[in-house]
């Protein structure tokens, strides 16, 4: 069970969060083709998670899918127009 450092709340255990989707899929949320077509790497990837049992915010988590290492988290940026 991972520890995810919430930008608002600090390090919290994984069960406080829910996984949302890969960040690229999140940015393509209104493009049905792109939403389903993603890299799914065995390694580092950025995902959006929600701190559902904490501050409630959606955050970007940089996570290694092969080792579950978490490099860091941040609040989502304003997507480029």
């Amino acid at each position, binding site marked *: 069970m991972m520890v995810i450092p919430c930008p608002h709340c600090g390090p919290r255990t994984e069960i406080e969060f*829910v996984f949302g989707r890969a960040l690229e899929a*999140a940015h393509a*949320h209104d493009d*049905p083709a792109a939403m389903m077509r993603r890299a799914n790497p065995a390694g580092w990837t950025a995902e959006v998670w*929600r701190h559902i049992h904490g501050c409630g915010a*959606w955050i970007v988590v940089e996570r290694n899918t092969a080792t579950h290492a978490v490099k860091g988290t941040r*609040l*989502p940026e*304003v997507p480029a127009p």
Partner: protein
Amino acid sequence: MSAYRLADGGAIDRDRVVRFTFNGRAMSGFSGDTLASALLGAGVMLVGRSFKRHRPRGVLSAGPEEPNALVGVGEGGRFEPNTQATQIRLYPDLIARSQNHWPSLGFDALAALDAASALFPAGFYYKTFKSPLRAWPLYERVIRALAGLGEPPKLPDPDSYGERFAHADVLVVGLGPAGLAAARAAAEAGLRVIAVEQDFRPGGALLAAATRINGAPSDLFVDQQASALREAGARVLTRTTAFGVYDHGLVGLVERLAEPGQTPSGAIAQRLWKVRAGRIILAAGAIERPLTFADNDRPGVMLAHAGAAYAQRYAVAAGRRVLFVASSDADYAALDALLRCGVSVCAVIDPREMAAIAPPARVIAARAGEHRTETTVIGALGGARVEGARVRRRGVDGTLDGDAMLVAGGWTPTIHLHAHMRGALAYDAARGVFLPQSETDTVRAVGACAGVASTAQCWRDGWRAGADAARALGRSAPDDPSPEIDAPLDEHDGFALPIPPRGADKQAFVDFQNDVTMADIALAAREGYRAVEHLKRYTTLGMGADQGKTSNLIGLHALAATREATPGSIGLTTYRPPFTPVTLSALAHDQTGANLEPTRRSPIFDDLVAAGAVMQTSGLWLRPRYFATHGETLHEAALHEARAVRTAVGVADASTLGKIEIAGPDAGALIDLAYATGVRTLQVGKARYAVMLNDDGFVYDDGTIWRLGAERYLATASTARTAGVLQRLTFLRDVVAPHYDVDVFDATEAWAALVVAGPRAADVLRATLGDVPPMAPQAVVETPALRIARISYSGEHAYELYCRPDAASALWRNLHAAARAAQGALYGLEALEWLRIEKGHVAVGAEIDGRTSATDLGLKAFIKKAPHAGARAAQRPAFTAEGRWRLVGLRSAYGADIPEGAPLVDDAGEQCGRVTSSGFGVGVGGAVALGLMRDGPAHHGAIVTAASATRRRHVRVRVGPSCAYDPEGARLA
């Protein structure tokens, strides 16, 4: 005193006799015994029957590696099967019974299976029982009756189990010399330390040896270390197993507060710990392996150091005429302990020639009966108990008498917790074992599990790890007190490679628990199962409750020998948690029954119950299904409740509805993005029905949006979708449009919601609240204490009233009284279903099932052209293709009830749709239903059959518009 209990010594309290029963026989041991030591002390060597061949089996080990001595303990709901007798601390009135035999342990009819073992080679269940195919049900019944180990308890567990979270800078697993040193160094440096030991006494290997530390028996030293640890602030947990290491330093522990089958004296039987450790120092020690000779599974064949442990710690002799079988010089330390305790060893057998044996070992052996060098054991004699050994010296066979054989086959480091997180392992060819190659991020192995052989070095290795942890966290490391350790043969490497197992003996067991022999491994290799994971699955080597702790490495060496390969090149099977079995009760701890998930109740729950509400669950909520006022049935009550709404007035509780407040300068923009229905034109003081799509373009939920102010909205959501709607709204705000300035807040529990519906609703509202200004349809009125919207789900003139939860009870009672005066009634979900079905309103779960588009549901008019979430997905070709199942209303052609869920079948016998929800339409007077039907709107007027195979009912239904009741909406005006 039995002949097996030694006259003195041992860490047992001879003044405290503990009585217990085994297979119904009253027996006794001492406080400080395990069940295994008490049985051995009473002379009971035969404790079970093996899994497959029903061979008699005795105690092999003295620890968690025990494959044989599995017993059922306790009674009723506390009964626990497959528990290792070596792992149960003896307690008064313990009830234990052996397993896997019929009719009795001594005479097992199924032992005939052993004689027929040629019929059950490795993988026999993949090869036999294949034909004739139709006989399989018979085979299966017989196999199922024979298969399985132990029986599950038949009653619920009456005990409580706890759960605790903890954090530690350092978690030390195992409190032998290495673990004690590591924990002390870290604790003295001021780190937060949790130190766990699965045994009820710390000490590890010291408990089984004649080691002296600082001039005194090691027991004293161990007790001092444990107290020093506690004084330094460490949490020391004995009888606690670290069963698994997970991501980011999470370690699962099970602390046994009561023994298996024992009534807990405190509040709880076991506690599940979830420890988040910065570092894990693994000091789990090593497990001794048996030797592979014919009939090496006979009761009385025991691991050498287990024999020493029983003598040293429990003052129990494994036999009265013990044969000691050594593989290396270090094994003579166990012999030394046995002899010092007064165990009668009549022969020491060693395959090496005398010159190769270290002089101190020779000196120890000289104290035994005789020292047989250059001698190998080729078989055990005896049946239910060992009677001697068959030995071979320089090609000449002979026998030796004895009633126990203590065998030393070398040590296997206990690397499980290192391997759980895929820590790298390296094969040490000189010693034939796998060792932790490098530290993982968090786990560092020290002592015997890292291949350190001597007690003194184990202490130093542990201290170094504790000190390193301190330095890494910026503390100054304390100096090693360097205790003076006097352990016999301490400088000799116990990991020295033993005789590699060879041959294909059908009676030489590798895995005792699963009856896997050398012959099975040879057969599997011959048949091509040459990968270690294949070998495991084909032969069941290393499966079961012990997971091959004594057998895996032997099996690997045997497999390697068949392939002329090295174990290092073949590799190990995957280590997975748990290290030792964990009871399901501990994993479930208090999250069972009513605690499994929370129950959500309306703020007026008590009033609802007092009014006769019969509840149903709706997600976590309890909601009234109907009000049983005069002993009415569900159908009778729903009929009278629905009629009240249509003819007079009804009052209902809708507090479970999701209520989400959306406020801020960009509130309108967020709603515009999130909902498919346009709200740009919604004026302050008005509400509007709105549809939300999922990203895949299908309808996700529907509800109403109330505009309370210029930048303030309330969105309602279906009870079951509230969390999901909130999830979508926050996702769109935080991820898709983080530049929006808007708050989204779940106010579901901040407001109670009551509904007044029916032609006399306005009268009831006035009678209850006094002067309420007349409200047009969709109007919203807000006061600090109350929000009222004139919106309708039932199809009648209706109001939703939101008030603070603590004011809801009074409002409910007043509304109820006013409704009664107006010939009205309370109504529940069943009546509400009937009302909305004939009105053609869709509901989540029935029509909104994740596969229906807005067009399918006849909601196209509510979908705006402007961009919104899910809009592009909803334009995919399949959404507009012909042949989609679309919403229709169904009326019973001849009056019969329409079976909900039934397929709709056309006159050609083809399925053309299904019934999604069904009820009785009090407004239209007859059975009504909603359904989804292929190109449904094109078939209005057709008659099809709702054919329920499960209910054996076929009902002819007429297809029509979804709204059967008041399609013009006259009653809403």
